[in-house]
């Protein structure tokens, strides 16, 4: 069976689990993954939460949807997770203290991956906190030489999450046509 993946990242509480759940064909699995760091010469074990969903494309093909652990100290997991992935969905919580700083942090953390693939940014909870505005995010991200789609999203709405994924796919290939058309 062919397996591919899309990575959902962002700070804790940005809606990664909810967004994956909105488009997954299975209930999102919240996994306790065990990460090991051997560099210190001794085994150190840390438990992190990893979200996992699936989109079945056919009997022999599926897309894995991975939600990264939000905690910064687990960022070594991000590189492992993103290896071979199709693209990155970054979710930001507009009610956090400095969501623009979150944007810069995650873009920087995934910069190599973004340069090889594409990025789509979803901003959640804009109904609770309208600022920063979407235009502010565009300004911030333009400063680092990127021009991704940035949408206001309700992570509970499959339409919103679906549009974000569509934007990611069309960014990868604007000439794309749905397989059944």
């Amino acid at each position: 069976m062919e397996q591919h993946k899309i990575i959902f990242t962002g700070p804790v509480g940005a809606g990664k689990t909810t967004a994956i759940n909105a488009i997954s064909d299975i209930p999102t699995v919240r996994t306790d993954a065990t990460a090991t760091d051997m560099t210190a010469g001794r085994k150190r074990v840390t438990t992190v939460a990893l979200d996992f969903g699936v989109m079945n494309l056919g009997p022999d093909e599926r897309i894995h949807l991975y939600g990264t652990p939000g905690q910064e100290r687990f960022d070594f997991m991000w590189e492992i997770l993103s290896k071979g992935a199709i693209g990155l969905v970054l979710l930001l919580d507009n009610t956090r203290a400095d969501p623009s700083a979150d944007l810069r942090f995650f873009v920087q953390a995934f910069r190599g991956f973004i340069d090889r693939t594409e990025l789509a940014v979803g901003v959640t909870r804009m109904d609770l906190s309208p600022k920063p505005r979407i235009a502010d995010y565009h300004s911030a991200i333009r400063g680092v030489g990127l021009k991704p789609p940035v949408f206001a999203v309700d992570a509970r709405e499959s339409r919103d999450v679906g549009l974000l994924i569509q934007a990611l796919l069309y960014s990868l290939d604007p000439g794309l046509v749905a397989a059944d058309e």
Partner: protein
Amino acid sequence: MTTMSKPLRVTALGLDKRSRSALEMILKGPGKGACVLTDVAESEAAIVDMDRPEASMLWENYHRHYPERPGIALSAQDSCPEGTRLQPKPVSINALLASLRAVAEELAGPEAATAETGKAAGAQLESKVVSTRGATQVLEDRAVRRYVSALPESLPEDYRQLSDPASRAKLFFVPTDYIGGHLLEAIREAVARGEARIIHLRVGAITVDPAAHRTWCALTDTRLKQVCMVRAHSGDGEALDLRIEGQARGAAVEAPPGGGAGLDLDAFVWKVAVWVSRGRAPEGTDLQEPVLLRHWPNLTRLLMTPSVMRVAAIWAKQHRSPVETATLLRIPLSHVLTFYAAARATGLLVEARRQKDELFSPPDIDRHRQRGLLSRMLAKILGATQGSDQKGT
């Protein structure tokens, strides 16, 4: 239909005696009396047989006097006039009743009160209707796709020299020929001056607050769309009593009673521009001039139009003219022009001024090495969110 107790009142335009009798039988029988035929003055909507010689004149006259009243156009053709929904011939009873139900639903509920309440200072605003996604959005998406797709799909070679007004009107529009164009101009000026505006129409008021980047609109989307498409230069603007009230810079803007949080200004401007454009570009547009997007539009909160994602994706990265874009993406030019008009109205477009005599054309769209996989994913996503948008892209 509208309600069990209050039947929808419909007038029949251009129907001969026999057709009218048949229609009455349908409404009383299968329609179960939820809709009745009435005269023009008392009607809430009209059914017009567009294949009759006098039909266009009858509808235009009706629409001019009652721009807020919707119509159902029975026709063997693929197109229908502004303000109507097409009911293709041969007309099945179920399809006709479904169209009448849809018209009744448009007229029912909050918007039914709008025309009256809009006259009063304390207009009951319907920001929830305007800003609601979901079912309303889906209906709008489909409606936009229907009328945009009906426009010409290719560009005449001599489009710059088109002198025939009818041919030219298929490609270009003069914004100020429409009430919607005047709305856009009033908003543009309000934003440029940083001053709030209250735009009064006989059917309701629109408050624009550039500082908060919000609008409050007393009209439902259905009614607003109808108003936007009304021609302004033939006296209809006066009939709609368009009046703009300015407020001094920095003056506090009172959200109209019941107006809630209102609607994002860009989302409002975008949809008005889409409705005025209907697949055409503003007069004066060079269709072969490359353009670029400053950034992606916030498409989860905007009225979706056909192929919007694909045009946004290409213009976010590449300087392309509307004509080039339609060719590269193999989509109707009208899809591109609708996007062009909305993006321009919201200030997202940058004219790239690429040298037209460049030795080399820009590269084609990069084909992703996993295009097959991405296509299957796209089909899956479109299927999962079916009806929301984009199936036509």
